[in-house]
């Protein structure tokens, strides 16, 4: 296997349209996330930047460490580690100690990408692997939601942000509940307008529905994203939460609340659409989206946790190779596909 077959181009995912390169696609996503990032800083103060930077630093440093061991380790330059770090940072609570964000970034790249063989070989979305690790490792810190910035305004840094490495924050932070938490544990709804603007408690980048959708439209116009996945997720979620809402409207929220609360928009637009870990065929994309939507509603309604976006995407990531296999287009003139 030393000589290359000139007629056979073997390439791993992400498989992109002609003229599109990985760095360019990554840059587009970074642009799309810029307003969301600025909103996070606006709502949660300077601490938000620190958390994001710590997470990005963890991801980039890990990638650099491993890349420098290999020949031709220039993958750091394509922006994927920065993007993974930023995406992870946007799913973290504002008051998270910085060392945890850094660790999460390192795990995202180490366990989520490098161990699989680098970009294109990973089965699971790296940012969500990092988040799943953090949630299982530090369940209290990861579900403690700092309130929106108070009197200090822009320069707010949560005291818990600055906990020493391996140590707890020590002080009892002022906390508030996320809209989903309020719904699940106290059957208390949040006005839709707050969810759309984003002035609610929650992870850094998940609160502002409007900006997330705007970024998604930009990516769709730049053809960086398979629109089928977010659309099918959101439609599925709306249908199933409408059914549950009709059964018991005090326990289960209405469809619009379901779509605009928690990590639904952030996850379905920016994470479920990761070209490496989602199906490549159009039919596969629909199946993937419906699967994620169903799982989210089930986990949110009947699971122990208020939010289920992360686990839904990870579970469907695991099913992606299978979906791809069974949705291969039929070769023209042949019998059944997949024989």
């Amino acid at each position: 296997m030393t000589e290359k077959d000139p007629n056979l181009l073997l390439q791993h995912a992400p498989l992109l349209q002609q003229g599109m390169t990985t760095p360019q696609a990554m840059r587009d996503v970074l642009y799309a996330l810029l307003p969301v990032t600025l909103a996070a800083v606006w709502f949660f103060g300077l601490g938000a930047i620190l958390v994001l930077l710590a997470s990005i630093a963890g991801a980039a440093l890990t990638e650099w460490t491993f890349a420098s061991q290999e020949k031709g380790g220039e993958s750091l330059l394509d922006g994927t580690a920065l993007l993974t770090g930023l995406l992870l940072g946007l799913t973290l609570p504002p008051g998270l100690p910085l060392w945890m964000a850094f660790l999460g970034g390192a795990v995202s790249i180490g366990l989520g990408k490098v161990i699989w063989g680098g970009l294109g070989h990973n089965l699971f979305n790296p940012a969500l692997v990092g988040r799943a690790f953090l949630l299982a490792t530090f369940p209290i810190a990861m579900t403690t939601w700092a309130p929106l910035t108070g009197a200090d305004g822009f320069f707010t840094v949560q005291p818990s942000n600055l906990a020493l490495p391996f140590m707890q924050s020590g002080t009892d932070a002022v906390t508030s509940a996320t809209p989903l938490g309020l719904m699940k544990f106290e059957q208390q709804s949040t006005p839709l307008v707050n969810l759309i603007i984003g002035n609610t408690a929650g992870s850094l980048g998940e609160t502002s529905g409007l900006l997330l959708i705007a970024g998604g439209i930009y990516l769709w116009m730049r053809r960086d994203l398979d629109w089928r996945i977010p659309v099918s997720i959101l439609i599925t979620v709306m249908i199933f939460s409408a059914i549950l809402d009709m059964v018991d409207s005090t326990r289960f929220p209405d469809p619009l609340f379901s779509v605009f609360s928690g990590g639904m928009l952030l996850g379905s637009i920016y994470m479920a659409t990761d070209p490496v870990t989602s199906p490549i065929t159009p039919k596969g994309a629909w199946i993937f989206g419906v699967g994620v939507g169903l799982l989210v509603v089930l986990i949110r309604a009947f699971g122990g946790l208020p939010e289920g976006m992360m686990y839904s995407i990870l579970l469907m990531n695991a099913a992606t190779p299978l979906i791809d296999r069974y949705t291969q287009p039929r070769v023209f003139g042949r019998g059944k596909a997949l024989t």
Partner: protein
Amino acid sequence: MDKTQNQAYEEFIKGIWRENPVFVQVLGMCPMLAVTNSAINAFAMGGATFFVLVGSSFLVASFKNLIRKQVRISSFIIIIATFVTVADYTLEALVPTVHKELGAFIPLIVANCMILGRQEAFASKNTISMAVMDAIGMAAGFMLALLTLGSVREILGNGSLFGVDLFGPDFEPWIIMILPPGGFLTLGLILLVFNWFTVKKAQFIDKVAAAERSSS
């Protein structure tokens, strides 16, 4: 050292490093992953396995001429199960809290393929002293692996080692480490380091050999 002593030492040392049942042969994964959430549990499991393996190897090597080939596996299992039951009752009487933590995993030592494997591959074909040396080496290697995993998981997951607090009350425990996924993660990382070390060592030896060749 005469030849027998040399061989006995060789049988002993191979189980600890070169043929380590966990790091090299990847055997006995069930107790390895299940009961290593604290160093004391790992130690108790290692001790019980040590007792069962050494006892069984001794008996199997002693009776190897009496045991018919057709029924050897059944006989090995009877011998192993007897030692496991003895270990089970003894632990329950002496250290009830540890016994409760280990739970079903003590009876499950019977199913540890490392133990049956040593009987079939070694004890039934060798002299008593060699079989015992081999068993001690393998059991020590297993204990070493359990303790490594148990210590890492307890230090990170609970901030303590053998129940002794290491970092003070402000330590933030890594809860995943004492949950089942922590076992898989830690074992994977340890195997990574072990293999990395083995590869580096081989490269180093190659380099030294090449340097010697060129200089001579």
